[in-house]
């Protein structure tokens, strides 16, 4: 929990499952805690000092989505990435300056005897890579796949991205 304490002048902004957060406040640190098969797509414009992330659960919106529920595009990579891009450019980010980062997409359930569709992490990563390719955003770094959960932070002030797995120190992705 020690890393939950914001450093002086920092404000922790938790990005929960299915959420999209964009910020240009230099004190903001966007954090997605305990990513398993979920994937975080983070975009950052280093000139405008503007960034954002989505915390997506599935590669794409299921065809059998409950129609009674409101749209929730950030829960899905394919729908969430274009929305993140749109929110950032509306706030003043230049598409050509945006850098992309991916984290998560692990396979937590590794025991035998479970159906393959439960291993959604790999499909989340592939969908995110594809979404960035389609958007023409360069992928500058990723900490994806594997079998361990991760916590990822994006520092709006300078675009630093850190990733931590259990029992390890934070590592800089960018």
């Amino acid at each position, binding site marked *: *929990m020690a*890393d*939950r304490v914001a450093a002086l002048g920092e404000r922790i902004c*938790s990005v*929960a*499952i*299915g*959420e999209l957060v964009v910020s240009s406040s230099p004190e903001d640190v966007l954090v997605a*805690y*305990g*990513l*398993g*098969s*979920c994937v975080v797509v983070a975009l950052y414009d280093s000139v405008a000092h503007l960034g954002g992330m989505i915390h997506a*659960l*599935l590669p794409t*919106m*299921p065809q*059998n*989505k*409950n129609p009674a*529920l409101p749209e*929730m595009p950030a*829960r*899905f990579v394919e729908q969430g990435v274009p929305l993140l891009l749109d929110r950032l450019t509306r706030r003043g980010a230049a598409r050509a300056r945006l850098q992309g980062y991916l984290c998560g997409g*692990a396979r*937590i*359930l*590794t*025991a*035998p*005897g*479970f*159906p*393959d*569709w*439960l291993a*959604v992490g790999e499909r989340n990563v592939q969908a995110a890579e594809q979404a960035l390719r389609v958007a023409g955003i360069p992928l500058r770094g990723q900490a994806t796949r594997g079998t*361990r*959960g*991760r*916590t990822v932070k994006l520092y709006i002030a300078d675009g630093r991205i850190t990733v*931590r797995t*259990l029992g390890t120190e934070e590592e800089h992705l960018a």
Partner: protein
Amino acid sequence: MDRQVAFWKRVMMGREFKNLVQEALGQAAGGLSRMVGQAVVIDVPRIERVPLRELEQYTGALDSQMVGIYLLIEGDVGGQALLLCTPLAAMRLADLLLLRHPGTTQALGVEERSALAEMGNLTISLFLNEVAEMMGLMLYPSPPAVMVDMLGALLDVVIFPLAGMSHELLLVDTRLHSETSAVEVHLWLLPMPAARRSDVQDARYG
């Protein structure tokens, strides 16, 4: 509404089923007590609706290390079962299961994980047997999986089948604990939407 989810909602909201769940969990606790050689108590189960955006307030820090024992519920009704505890509680539980002096287990290796898996299997099997008998259903668990990781990563496993179906987790939450040792395990039971359930069956039998 999804037939599986509708079933779970109906049975969770009905008072008669609440009694049934409690009775079935009592059977599970009894079996677990016999397995570990001391009384395991089970709390009155609570039906919870937890919005995904409030998950962390309900569960605690998503980046904290936890141990999860996961099983699919298969048969006439699909569902998921997740037993959750801290690593310390899991090690004390392993002491009990492996007939060790309290405090002996210092890590969760192959033997300890196997014992925890067996405990999960026994608990959920006894619970399902009781529910199946009382309701005239065929229910059985998948093999158990023991996972040690950040809580958020463990919860991804049970949440993602519900993505697109709901903004909240509908679950039965109860606590198994020993009155004589520092063992406390949360047991969650969750619906499996019909669409996902057919995925399971296709993968298993296709």
